Each structure stands twice: as C-alpha cells, then as structure tokens.
C-alpha cells in the first residue's frame, strides 16, 4: 500500500521504506566539485553512512560494500533550506483573531502536496513551514524535510527549535476595516486597523502572557509549600508566548518597513525576548545596525518587491548589505501552493553576487548554513561536514548558474529525487493516467441506460447545447 504512493523508482521506494531505522548501504559520491559552504570548495568525494556524512575530502576511504556514484564534472552542495514557506499545508491562516498562537502548522501538514516533490527537484531539502501573516501573532511553525512519500510525521524535522509567526504592517491590519469579508456576511472589523494597533496587540498579548506565567509560578510555589489548590487553567494561546519569553521558542516576524522593524525590536527588548528572524524585511538595509544590535536574523528576497505599498522601497542589495553589516541573513521563497521560488533558490542566491558582490560561499550560505542557524538546526544540516545529516544536492553545473539542473537529491542519505528516473517514469505515469480516464469513460457509458436520449443524464457532457 505504502509503495503505491511513492512516485520514485521502485528501487528508491524500497530504500525509502527501509527508512532511518535499518542500516543503509554506504554511498560514496565520487570526483565532484564539493561546495561545503563552511570549509570552502574542493574536488573530491563525500561518504554517506547510515544517513550521515562521515567523510569529505580529496581522498576518502570507501567503506566495504559501498555504492559508488561517479559524480565527475558534477557539483555537490548541501541541501537548500527555505526559511519561509507555506507549502505542504492544508491551512495557512487562522485569520479570524489577532492572536492565533494556539494553532499549529504541524496539525495540517499535507504530505501528498506535490510542492514537496517540486522543491526536491529544485534542490530544497528543508523548509520552514510558517503560518500566514493575517494577524499580529500567528500560529506555530514546523520545520519539514522534503521526504517525499513519508506521512506527515515522517516529514517533520524533529531536531528543529520550536517557533512562532508574527506579522507587522498591512496584512495584520487589513481586517481592521471590517464590513467586507471575502467570505460574505456583514462583519464587525477586527482590531487592529493601524500599525499602532498591531504594536498594541503584541504588547497586550505579552502582558497577558506574563500574568499567565506569574500565575503558574505562584501556583508551583504554593504547591511546593504543600498547599492544595486548583492549578491555573491551561491556555493554548498563552503557552507559546510564555515559551517565547523563556527563550524556548523562536520568533519569525513578517515585516517590511524600517519603522515597524524598529517598533518590534523595541517591544521585544522591553518584554525581554528575542526576535530570531525578521522575515521579508525589505527595508532591512535601512536599519541593519539596529537589527544587528538586537541579534535578529534576516530572511529576505533577492529582487522581488513592489507588489504592495509597503513593499516598494526595496533594493536588490538588501541581502548583501545585511550580510556585510554582520546580520545573519538568508533568502526564502514565501511559496504558497505549488513550489515556485523554492524550486530555484540557488539562482536567487546567485543574484547576490551581482547585487552586492557576495562571494560564492557567502551566496550559498544564504540558502544553506545561514537559514540552518536561523532555525536552530545548523548542528545537523546546512553544510557538507562529517557528522551532519546527508542532505545533498548534485547539480550538473555550478549551482549558482541559472543553466544548472538538479540531478539527484539525498536526504538523510536516502535518494529522494533522481532526474533520470523521473524522466524515464513519465511515459508509464501518462499511460496509467490515460488508463484511468478511459476506464472512467467506459463506466460512464455502461451506466447509460438504453432508453436515455441525448441530453439526458449519463450522456456525454458536450451534448445538450451547453456550449451555445
């Protein structure tokens, strides 16, 4: 049953079913140009054993029984990490309230979303699946590995630090106009309606969270003294905010304008928590020093802007300026539905070499080790180093060239994408689909009763003058 779902070759499916539990056959990727990102670029080989990179170098020891893949003339980079996406989710926004920290993206993972496969085909192996930006404080994000064919739990990267989405500016205040709901009905406006209100919502939420935190501390203290009393009511909305205050949960904040960025940094400083990443942050170049001083990371676009008022004052040098100012910076896709920008983040990174003059390693870091650090997973992924998880992408050419193509993708040492196998399987899949369509047509015809006249039920849909 499980195998039917896996669209890769049968051989790959077998390996995938085996999973991490059983010992994998060792793999050696030989004679490639290896972009380690953290230790420069070299010509040599990578050894994969039991899902991990065990050796990288010009000369490596080939383990007994290893499968050797000749990668002569090819380039290998660490799997791309997309620090902001909305793919593979069955819902994105809980936009009915201004603070929706009770909702979790982990609940709504859709492992059948073909965007996962699209991402793989573009070399993206890890994504940060975030709540939308409809409200000041959104839901809890989940970091996924693109293990196509696994169920929802199988996609979750359990090592990632928990996080939460915040949003500033136009999106969270849009509902403040009220009246016209896209879903119909006469709707009271949802506070806030201004940027000031967005700030107030965040302040109010954290004030409430601090009271909640204090109530629990008081309860624990009194109970420790032997008092018998009722615990405070557990509140799923406030629990994650307390985790933010305690430094246990990362804040990923959607923002555009310099003023709102500064506002959020001030509020965070005042309440004593950190912003892990400023997302989009198109005007980040104006306040790079302040972002650096707070210690926030930035996750931005290369040259995509102008799609709404707050996104106009942007420059393609943003990522480079932030990088030069010492801000931990990444590039993201913000994809919804099918994978789009996330299927070519390598070329997005390449643009920063033209705009801002970043080095190859710096450009690649924007889509590998930097987002890994921002998500608290750099111990496991983000570079090609012994001991890290074997998330690797083989390109036919230099990955920063727009002419390059992804040939193979490994996650945890398992091959999840093989361009050749994909192309070879297309004819079979087309035939399978054609077969199902024909079968359906035949059933339809069989269900037509002999007495049916054209235009009656069960006849071909084109009849009956629909087209006139």
């Amino acid at each position: 049953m499980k195998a039917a779902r896996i669209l890769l070759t049968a051989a790959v499916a077998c390996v995938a079913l085996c999973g991490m539990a059983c010992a994998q056959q060792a793999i050696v990727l030989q004679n490639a140009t290896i972009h380690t990102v953290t230790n420069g670029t070299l010509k040599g080989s990578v050894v994969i054993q039991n899902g991990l990179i065990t050796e990288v170098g010009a000369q490596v020891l080939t383990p007994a029984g290893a499968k050797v893949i000749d990668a002569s003339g090819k380039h290998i980079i660490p799997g791309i990490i997309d620090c902001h996406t909305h793919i593979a989710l069955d819902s994105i926004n809980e936009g009915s309230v201004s603070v929706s920290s009770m909702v979790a993206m982990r609940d709504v993972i859709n492992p059948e979303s073909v965007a996962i496969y699209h991402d793989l085909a573009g070399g993206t192996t890890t994504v940060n699946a975030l709540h939308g930006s409809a409200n000041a404080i959104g839901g809890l994000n989940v970091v996924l590995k693109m293990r196509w064919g696994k169920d929802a739990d199988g996609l979750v990267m359990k090592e990632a630090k928990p996080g939460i989405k915040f949003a500033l500016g136009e999106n969270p205040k849009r509902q403040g106009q009220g009246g016209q709901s896209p879903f119909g009905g006469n709707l009271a406006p949802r506070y806030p309606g201004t940027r000031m209100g967005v700030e107030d919502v965040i302040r109010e939420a954290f004030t409430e969270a601090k009271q909640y935190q204090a109530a629990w501390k008081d309860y624990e203290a009194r109970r420790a003294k032997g008092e018998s009393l009722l615990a405070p009511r557990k509140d799923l909305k406030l629990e994650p905010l307390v985790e933010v205050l305690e430094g246990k949960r990362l804040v990923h904040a959607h923002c555009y304008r310099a003023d709102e960025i500064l506002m959020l940094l001030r509020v965070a400083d005042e309440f004593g928590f950190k912003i892990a990443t400023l997302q989009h942050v198109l005007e980040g170049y104006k306040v790079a020093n302040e972002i650096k001083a707070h210690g926030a990371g930035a996750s931005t676009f290369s040259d995509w802007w102008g799609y709404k008022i707050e996104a106009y004052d942007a420059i393609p040098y943003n990522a480079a300026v932030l990088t030069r100012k010492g801000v931990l910076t990444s590039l993201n896709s913000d994809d919804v539905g099918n994978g789009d920008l996330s299927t070519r983040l390598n070329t997005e990174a390449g643009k920063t070499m033209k705009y801002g003059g970043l080095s190859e390693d710096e450009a690649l870091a924007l889509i590998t080790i930097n987002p890994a650090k921002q998500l608290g997973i750099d111990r496991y992924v983000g570079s090609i180093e012994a001991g890290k998880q074997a998330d690797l992408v083989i390109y036919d050419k230099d990955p920063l060239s727009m002419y390059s193509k992804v040939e193979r993708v490994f996650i945890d040492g398992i091959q999840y994408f093989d361009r050749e196998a994909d192309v070879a399987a297309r004819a079979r899949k087309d035939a399978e689909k054609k077969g199902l369509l024909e079968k359906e047509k035949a059933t339809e015809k069989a269900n037509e009763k002999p007495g049916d006249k054209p235009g009656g039920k069960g006849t071909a849909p084109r009849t009956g003058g629909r087209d006139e």
Partner: protein
Amino acid sequence: MNKRLFSLTLGFIAAAGLVLAAPPSHVAIRGARVFTVSGPVLEHGTVLMKDGLIEAVGEGIAIPADVTIIDGAGLNVYPGLIDALSTWGIPEAAGPATLAALATPAAPAAPVTPGQTPPPPQPRVRGPEDRPNAFTWVKAADLVKPSDKQIESARSAGFTTAVTFPKQGLLAGHGAVINLGGETSGDMVLDPSAGLYTSQAARGFASFPGSLMGVMAYMRQLWIDAAYYKLAKEAYAKDPVTNPRPAYDRALEGLLETHRLLLPATSRVQIERALRFGVEFKTPFVLYGGHAAYATADELKKAGVPVILNVKWPAKEKDSDPEEIPSMRTLQLRDKAPTTPAALAAAGVPFAISSEGLDAPKDVVKALKKSIDVGLKPADAIRALTLSAAEIYGMAGRLGSIEKGKIANLTVIKGDLFDDKAKVSMVFIDGKKYLPAPEAPTPPRPSSGAPATEVGQ
C-alpha cells in the same frame, strides 16, 4: 434485555406523559432464508418474535398455537438494516433553524437581500472562550419525531434503525440510536448518547475557528476547559467557601457527556491526521467518511479505530468541464474508493455504512452493490449494515443480528438484498410489521436516477 430497553426509554416516556402502546403480537416467519449474521445462514429458518423481541430462531423450531405465521418461502430475512450516520428522524424544521435560534454566539449571518438595510454587524468571536459553533448540549434524541417524512422512505428501503445526528456546527451535538418506527419520539430512541458529531466547518476570516488548524486547536482547548471545569465544580462542591464558583457552561456540560467522538476523515491525509488527533481526547473515537481508507486499512487496524463509511462514492461531477483533466490522485481515489469496504474487511477493521450525501435511502444498498462488484463479500456487506454498526455503537447486545433476546428488528426481502430486482417485502421494528410505501408510478418519460420518493436531506 427487555428491562434494559425499558430503563433507557422510560425517562422519555415518563417525560412525555405517555402510556406504553399495547405489546406487539406474537409473529413467526417460517421457512425463510435467514441471515442471522452472528451465526450461519438458515436455508429454511424460522424466526419467532414476541413482545418486541426475538423469542427464537432456528430450523424446525416449534411454533406455539396462537402465533401469526408468515410464510417465508422466497423471502430472505436479515437483521434490520442500520444507517450508521444519518439525519433520518430529525425533521428539517427541528434541524438547522432551531439550532440557529439556540446559538446566540456566531450564528451564520443571514443573507442580505439588495435594497434592504443590512443587520448590524455581529460581534467578533474572541476565541475558544466564546464557544463558537459548539452545540454540545444538543441531543438528537430530543429532536427526533416519528412524523419525519424520511422515516417511511428509509423503512421502504429496508432500514429499521438509524444512528441519527444533529449536523449544525463544528461540535454539532449528540447522536441517538433510533428505531425507525414507534408511536412517540420516546419509543424510537434506543440510546440517546451514541456519540458527539464533529465537523471541520471552518469559516475563514469571518469567525473563529477559521481554519482547519483553528478547529483542531479549538477542540483541544475545549477538552482542556472541560476537564478543568469538572475539577473546579468538584472543588466548589467540596468547599464553596474557599473555592471560587465556576460559571455554568452549557458547552462544557455537553462535552463532559461525550462517550464517543465522531471525527471526519475522507482522504488518506485526513485519515492519518484524524488517527493522530483522535487519541488526544482520550475518548473512544470513530472516523466517518473514509473513502480513501483502502490505503490506510493497516493503520486503522493498528489503531483499532472503526470507520463509518460514506458510500456516496467520489465520481466525476455531472456537467463538469470536459476540458479539465483531474489529477492522478483524484482519478485514483474515484477508481479505488468502492474497494474500501473489501479492504477494510480483509484487514479486520470494523466498519459500518452511512447514508450521508445520498439522495434516497434506497441508494445505500445500490452503492454497496458497487463494492460487491469489485470484490466485497456479500456477507461482509450485510454485516456492515447490521451487526458491525451495532458493535461500533455498543448496541450489539440488543441489535444487529437475529438472535434470541435481541430487539425484533428484521428486514424481509423478496429475493436477495443486493439483487437489483429484489423488493423489500416488509420490515419489523420492535416486532411490529411495516409494509413499504407503494412505489411512485413510473414517470411517462424515462429519466434515469430520479428518486421514486422525494426525500429532503
């Protein structure tokens, strides 16, 4: 058995101030093909009914002198068919409209006709604390009426029993196992707390919860709040001086009565998600929908979770765009969904059948016939319509098979249940005989698929 039925229904009868109807007569069906379901098929079986219960069943059993005898030659006798997820018995008047009136917070907005002054905007739901869309205090047992027009067409299609649910809202209320016959509403109800029906009807940005994940978070918070409410009430009962008085909460009161939870899950992803989600409530749960359960039979078996299968099989929509080519996954689901009953039976997953979404009660058996055509054993199909449904709802001691002591609900067919030409001859409910409604005359112009009797859903 008799006593149990009495104790359950007595409350209703007493409340309605009614007297019990005269006990049904003593009836035997002799020499029929009897599908006991719990045991073997009896080729020349006799079923003896007395006082609403099955008194005896077997081949060549003695029939007392005063018994009305029905000649069973050419008749197949089945346990009364059960619609395991239904709205039968709840008249539409007592459905959405009544519930909307009950629901002060977040009732759906009335449509605005042009030229009319729109009503003032509804107050925003703040979150779970406003209990939006939770009608846990609603009970199907309080809404059923013997006069509901769906009852007769259901009986005419061979059904004797339904597990009927209120459907309005996210937590729509408690279902009831009802007999599709009886003089009063109270007579009909066999179990007033069959389970809590939940949907995932999110309402976008308009009101919390507006998304699937919002629905899930909301349900979690409700269960946390209910457990807390219970503790707070107990503490207050013990010591009303030092402990605060918890505010009365009808949504939580209703929630605390939940012995069984019905969760929707149709696609593979939904089924896997519901299996993970359902265990959080520490209450037995049942999945309804289940079209893609053919792909998750092993997971369902492992989880020990039964399925109420919706047999309105996914199909190409009438008048769909001929240029549009559906996705491979859609095509696969349409192709494979009717194989789900056989797959569940093979894996040993308990499953029953729901009429949800079908035009008429008689379409249920027709839809199941499709599954028989692709490999479902007729015996498994019969079981799903009878004993499995009773087992899933904890009613197997009283319903679902033809055994001594069980409620005398029988479906009598002239021919085989799954034969297109077979006709429902009669049904027995609590031992009382009902004949099918006369069929509507054939319309002058043949148009396939038109229901013989009009049934509103």
